[in-house]
């Protein structure tokens, strides 16, 4: 299943929503990110992955959206997992201290391995 969402497509892997973030996240598209995160939270009952492996730049507006999603997920008993590919995105996570708050992984496979719901049902 693939739900198009203004630059932030949400794909279901097993029963885990995965938000595919674009190359650049800034004030011009952070609202789209926020909308996609809300949609993913709804589809995944609070737990989902944000795949930022393609993302080369993320400003504080994007970080703000991720923090809001993380807080919301914790309230709902779920969790947000990040996939971080580039050093630049890792840098802003580190500066803001978010790297110690939100679980993050170098690949989508490693993130999904933490979520039993992502595994296909045994045939």
């Amino acid at each position, binding site marked *: 299943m693939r739900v198009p969402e203004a630059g932030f497509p949400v794909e279901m892997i097993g029963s885990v929503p995965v938000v595919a973030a674009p190359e650049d996240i*800034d*004030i*011009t598209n952070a609202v789209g990110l926020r909308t996609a995160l809300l949609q993913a939270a709804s589809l995944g009952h609070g737990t989902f992955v944000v795949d930022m492996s393609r993302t080369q*730049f993320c*400003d*504080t*507006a994007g970080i703000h959206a991720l923090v809001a999603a993380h807080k919301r997920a914790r309230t709902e008993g779920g969790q947000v997992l990040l996939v971080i590919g580039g050093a630049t995105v890792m840098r802003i996570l580190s*500066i*803001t*201290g978010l790297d110690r708050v939100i679980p993050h992984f170098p690949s989508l496979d490693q993130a999904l391995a933490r979520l039993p719901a992502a595994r296909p049902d045994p045939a």
Partner: protein
Amino acid sequence: MSWPGGETMAGDYQDDGIPAPVLELAFDSGTLDALRTGVRTHACAAGLSEDRAGDVVLVVHELAANAVRHGAGRGRLRVWKRAGALHCQVEDGGPVVAAAPATVDSWPDRPGHGLWVVRKLADRMRILSGVRGTRATVAFNLPGHPGTAVCWLAHGQGLLGRVDAVVKGQVQQ
């Protein structure tokens, strides 16, 4: 100096004896990506490492984003390589947005967080604001010039108004 929309900003750099910047461009919400590309190119050309150039890009972007979001909706960036440092100046026609206190070590998850990041990463930061707008200047030490970044731009140019913040950021060793 003409300004997008026909306004005139205080501070004519030629009259004040300040050399021409290596990069000067107007920006708005539609050209922030071009601004980031230009800043990265000049930061690398000035001798900064790729990682440090990434910091410069983030800092200048956050200042420009503040201008777009909380100021006039547009602004102008100038970059100089001077006195052992890379100086980046962002001007807009709006009021300054209050930053979190300098003593706050953790990132404040609220409006003003962009300026917190700016202060955290820049070696020097100065914000001037007045009735005509806001002028933020940041400086980054170049390799071989540790701790020498000074806001020389604060002198010799038409000031917009009172000094709101002069903050010394971390010094790269």
